[in-house]
C-alpha cells in the first residue's frame, strides 16, 4: 500500500536511477553535480542546499527510504576545502539500486546541515559521524556522542588520529619483528595498557562527565507530580543495562517512568564498540573477512556474504575480474539461508524468554540450531565464526562426510553423508520442528495477550526511521533486498516475502516464523542445484584467489538481506591509482543499529515490562550495533 503511494508520488517521466539524477541536476544547476571520480557514482550536493535536495528526493522522486549515512575522511587525497564527505544511500521501496548523494565540507571545520528533519533514519548515523569524525550537524536535535563517552579525546576515525597501540599505517606490517625481536604492544606503552592521554591533560580537575549530558533534562531525584485527581506518583529514572539479563548483550536504556508507564526511553550504546572500522581500514581486504564474522555473531555467514559482494563490486571495476562460479553461488545461498534459520530460532527463543517462558522454548530451538552449527563446523571449521566466503568463491567445497573425530565432552561421534544430512534437516527435521513449535506457541494465550497491540510501529514511521528486516516487514511493507536488488542466484529462486498487518510484536514473531519456512523453501530448491553442480569449482578461475589482491579504486556498497535486516558495507578503495591493498574506508551499515532508532517511539506509553519484549522483537545484536 505504502508502495503504491510512493510510486504515485514519483514523477511519471522519472523512472530509472539515471533519469532521477538528470532530474536533480536539471532542477538544481550548480548545486547538484555528478560524481565524476573514477569508480564513483551518484551526485555531489552543495552542503548549503542539502535539505532542499533531500526533500526533493523524498517527495518528488520517491526515494523516501534512506538506508545508510556515513562519513569519509579524504585527508591528503581530496582538496582541503572538500576533504570530509558525507555519503547517503537512498532507495525506493519499489526496488532498484541506491541513489547515492554526497556532500562535502572542509575537514578543519566540517559543518553540514542535519537531515533528521527529512529522514529521521539519519538520527543515530549522524550522531555516529559526529562521534567518530567530528562533523557538526546543524539542526540535529540531540547531537552528542553515541559510541564513545562524553569527554573522550578527539574523533578517532579521522585519519590523523592514532591509537595507543599504533604501529604502522597498513598491514601487512613491514616486519613482524621490528628491531629483530618480538615485543608485545603493552611493552611500548608506559602505562602497560591500551591508553594514551593528551599532552594538556589537567589532572587537577578530573571528574567523570561521561554521564552528565545523558541525564540532562531528566530531572534526577524525586519529582512528585500529580497524575489525574488524587493519585500521586514519582517520576523515576531507571537504568536498564548494560548488565541486564534481558538486554541481549551490553545494551543500556535510560527510561523515565511515570508510575510504571514509560515516558521517555533513550538507548545508550557503545559498550561493545570494538573499533571494527578503524581496524578494518588498516587490514588488508582479506583480513577483514574474519572480522565481519564478529559483527552479527549469530549469522556470520550472512555477514561474510555482504562483505565479499561489496569487494567483488569493486573488483569488477578492474579488467581481470572473473565472475563467481555457479556452485559457489549455490553454496553461498545455502549458507545464507541456513544462517537465517539459525538466527530466527535464536531470536524467537529469546523473545519467549523475555515474555517469561524462561529458557524452555530456547532450549528446544537451540537443539535444532546445533544441528546446523554441526554442519557449519564440518564445512568451515568453526561453529560460530565461519570465515567461509572469499572474494570470487568460497573457502572450500562441501566435504563428503560430516565427521567429528573425537568423542568430546558429551558429544557423540558423528559421521554422516553431507547431502543426506542436509536433506534430512531441510526436508524432515526442521519442518517438523517448526510445526511443533508453532503448534505450542503461536496460538498461546499469554503470548497473544502480551504481544498483540504492543510495540506498534506504523508503516510510515517504519519507512521514515529506516527500519529494516522483520521489523519493517512486520509493519506491512514487503521490502526485502533479495527482491528489491537481487544478488547471487536469488532471481532464479521461488520464494515469498512474508509481511505483517499491524506492526506489533506478534506480527514480527509471525514474520520470523514464516521467514524460516520460506528459507526452507529456498533450501529445498538449493538441494537439487547442489547435486547438479557436484564437483564443479568453487573459486573464480578455478584456483584460490590471491592472498592480497589489488582492488581497483572506487566505491562500492554491498548489501544483503541478513536475518536482522539490510546489512550494507560501504567500501572505498582510494589512495593509489593502481589499486589498493587496504580499504580507505570500510563502513558497516548495521541493521540492529538503525532499528534501535524505533525503540524509543515504539515503547512510549507502554509498561516497563513491555520494553523488554519490544527490544526482543527488534532482535538486536550488540556486536553489530556498536561494531
Amino acid at each position, binding site marked *: 500500500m505504502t508502495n503504491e503511494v510512493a510510486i504515485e508520488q514519483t514523477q511519471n517521466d522519472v523512472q530509472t536511477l539515471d533519469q532521477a539524477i538528470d532530474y536533480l541536476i536539471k532542477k538544481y544547476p550548480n548545486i547538484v553535480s555528478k560524481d565524476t571520480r573514477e569508480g564513483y557514482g551518484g551526485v555531489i550536493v552543495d552542503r548549503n542546499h542539502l535539505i532542499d535536495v533531500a526533500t526533493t528526493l523524498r517527495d518528488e522522486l520517491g526515494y523516501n527510504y534512506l538506508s545508510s549515512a556515513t562519513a569519509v575522511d579524504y585527508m591528503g587525497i581530496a582538496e582541503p576545502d572538500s576533504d570530509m564527505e558525507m555519503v547517503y544511500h537512498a532507495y525506493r521501496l519499489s526496488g532498484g539500486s541506491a541513489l547515492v548523494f554526497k556532500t562535502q565540507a572542509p575537514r578543519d571545520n566540517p559543518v553540514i546541515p542535519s537531515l533528521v528533519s527529512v529522514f529521521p533514519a539519519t538520527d543515530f548515523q549522524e550522531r555516529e559521524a559526529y562521534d567518530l569524525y567530528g562533523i557538526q550537524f546543524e539542526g540535529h536535535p540531540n547531537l552528542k556522542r553515541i559510541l*564513545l563517552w562524553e569527554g573522550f579525546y578527539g574523533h578517532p576515525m579521522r585519519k590523523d588520529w592514532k591509537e595507543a597501540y599504533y604501529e604502522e599505517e597498513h598491514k601487512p606490517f613491514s616486519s613482524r619483528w621490528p628491531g629483530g625481536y618480538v615485543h608485545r604492544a603493552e611493552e611500548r606503552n608506559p602505562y602497560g595498557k591500551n591508553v594514551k592521554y593528551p599532552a594538556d591533560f589537567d*589532572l587537577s580537575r578530573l571528574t567523570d562527565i561521561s554521564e552528565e549530558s545523558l541525564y540532562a533534562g531528566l530531572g534526577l531525584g524525586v519529582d512528585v507530580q500529580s497524575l489525574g485527581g488524587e493519585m500521586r506518583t514519582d517520576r523515576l529514572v531507571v537504568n536498564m543495562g548494560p548488565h541486564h539479563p534481558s538486554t541481549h548483550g551490553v545494551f543500556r536504556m535510560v527510561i523515565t517512568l511515570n508510575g510504571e508507564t514509560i515516558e521517555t526511553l533513550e538507548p545508550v550504546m557503545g559498550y561493545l564498540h570494538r573499533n571494527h572500522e578503524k581496524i578494518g581500514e588498516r587490514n588488508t581486504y582479506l583480513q577483514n573477512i574474519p572480522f565481519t564474522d564478529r559483527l552479527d555473531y549469530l549469522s556470520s555467514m550472512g555477514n561474510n556474504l555482504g562483505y565479499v559482494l561489496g569487494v567483488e563490486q569493486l573488483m569488477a571495476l578492474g579488467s581481470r575480474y572473473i565472475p563467481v562460479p555457479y556452485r559457489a553461488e549455490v553454496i553461498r545461498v545455502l549458507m545464507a539461508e541456513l544462517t537465517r534459520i539459525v538466527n530466527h530460532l535464536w531470536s524467537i527463543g529469546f523473545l519467549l524468554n523475555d515474555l517469561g517462558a524462561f529458557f524452555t522454548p530456547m532450549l528446544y530451538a537451540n537443539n535444532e540450531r546445533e544441528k546446523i552449527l554441526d554442519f557449519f563446523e564440518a564445512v568451515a571449521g568453526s561453529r560460530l565464526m565461519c570465515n567461509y566466503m572469499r572474494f570470487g568463491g568460497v573457502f572450500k567445497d562441501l566435504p563428503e562426510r560430516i565427521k567429528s573425530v573425537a568423542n568430546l565432552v558429551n*558429544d557423540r561421534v558423528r559421521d554422516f553423508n553431507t547431502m543426506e544430512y542436509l536433506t534430512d534437516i531441510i526436508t524432515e527435521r526442521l519442518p517438523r520442528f517448526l510445526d511443533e513449535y508453532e503448534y505450542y506457541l503461536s496460538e498461546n494465550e499469554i503470548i497473544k495477550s502480551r504481544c498483540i497491540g504492543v510495540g506498534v510501529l506504523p508503516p510510515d514511521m517504519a519507512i521514515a526511521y529506516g527500519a529494516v528486516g522483520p521489523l519493517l516487514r512486520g509493519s506491512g511493507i514487503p521490502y526485502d533486498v533479495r527482491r528489491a536488488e537481487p544478488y547471487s542466484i536469488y532471481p532464479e529462486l521461488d520464494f515469498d516475502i512474508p509481511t505483517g498487518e499491524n506492526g506489533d510484536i506478534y506480527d514480527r514473531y509471525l514474520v520470523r516464523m514464516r521467514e524460516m519456512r520460506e528459507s526452507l523453501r529456498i533450501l529445498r530448491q538449493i538441494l537439487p542445484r547442489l547435486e547438479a553442480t557436484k564437483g564443479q569449482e568453487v573459486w573464480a578461475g578455478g584456483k584460490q584467489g590471491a592472498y592480497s589482491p589489488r582492488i581497483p579504486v572506487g566505491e562500492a556498497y554491498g548489501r544483503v538481506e541478513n536475518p536482522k535486516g539490510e546489512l550494507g558495507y560501504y567500501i572505498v578503495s582510494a589512495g593509489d591509482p593502481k589499486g589498493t591493498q587496504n580499504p580507505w574506508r570500510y563502513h558497516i551499515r548495521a541493521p540492529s543499529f538503525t532499528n534501535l532508532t524505533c525503540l524509543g517511539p515504539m515503547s512510549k506509553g507502554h509498561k516497563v515490562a513491555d520494553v523488554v519484549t519490544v527490544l526482543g522483537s527488534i532482535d538486536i545484536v550488540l556486536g553489530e550495533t556498536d561494531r
Partner: protein
Amino acid sequence: MAELNLNDLHDTEFPLPEGLQGNFAITSLSKIYNWSRRNSMWPLLFGLACCAIEMIGTAASRFDFSRFGMEVMRGSPRQSDLMIVSGTVTKKMIVPIVRLYNQMPEPKYVLAMGACASGGGPFKEGYNVVSGVDKYLPVDVYIPGCPPTPQALLNGLIALQLKIDGQSLANKDDVPWYGVGPSEPTPIPILGPDIIDPRQMDLIRRQTELAAKGLPYGVRELPPFQLKRSAPKKALASATTGDTGGGGGVERDAAALEIIKRKRMEALARKKAREAVTA
C-alpha cells in the same frame, strides 16, 4: 566412653564407638569447603559479546554445565561466585564490570573466556578495547579460542574446579578471603579523555609533567635487547656430579646448584627405596 577431643579427629586412627562405625567420614575442613564450593559454582548471568553465545550454548541441553553444579546463573552479582568474562572488554564496559566484581561476595572467581577477555584478541589494537580483563581484575582461568567451543569452556570450568580443590583454609596467603578483615575493593576506572586506572595516577602525573616540559611523553623506550639462553643440559649434568665448572659460559649461582644437586640425590634415594620395596 572416652571424652572426645576435637583435635583427635584429624587423626584417622581415632577409635570410633562401635555403633557409629561406618557412619563417619573424617576429612579436613578445607576439603569440605572446597568440595561444596566447586560443585555449586553460580556464574553471573552476564554476556559481553560473541563468547556469550557459546556460553549460552554450553548452558543449553546439549553441553549442559549443570552437570558440574553450575546451572544456577544469577542476574545479580550479590548471588554469584563466578564471573565468566565472555567477550571483548571495552573501555566503556570495564567500568560496570569492575563495579559488578566489587559487588560480588567473596569467595569469587573470574574466568576470562576467549581471546578478547584474555588479551584483547583480534580487537586488541582498537582505541576502545581493553587488552585483557586482567589489566583490571585478577583472573583465575584463561580459556583460549575465538570463541572457545562449549567443550573448551567446560574444560576451563573443570580447571577452575581443580584450582578450588587446591585452596586451603590454613594458608592465609592462598586466597584473600581467608585473610583478616574485608579485602579492598578494586578501584573503579574513570572515563576521562581516555580510561584512567586510579592505581596509575602517579604514572599519569609523571607523564603529564614530561609533556609540560616539552619532553617526549606517552612512549616507553624498550629495554636493550638481551637474548636469554636457557641453561644447557650439560651444566645440569655436571652439577649433579659435583663439577661446578658450568658449561656454555653460563654462570650459575652456587647455592642454586647445591639445591638442584640435593634434590636430585633425594629423588634418586627415593627411587632406590621404591625399587627395594618392589623387589
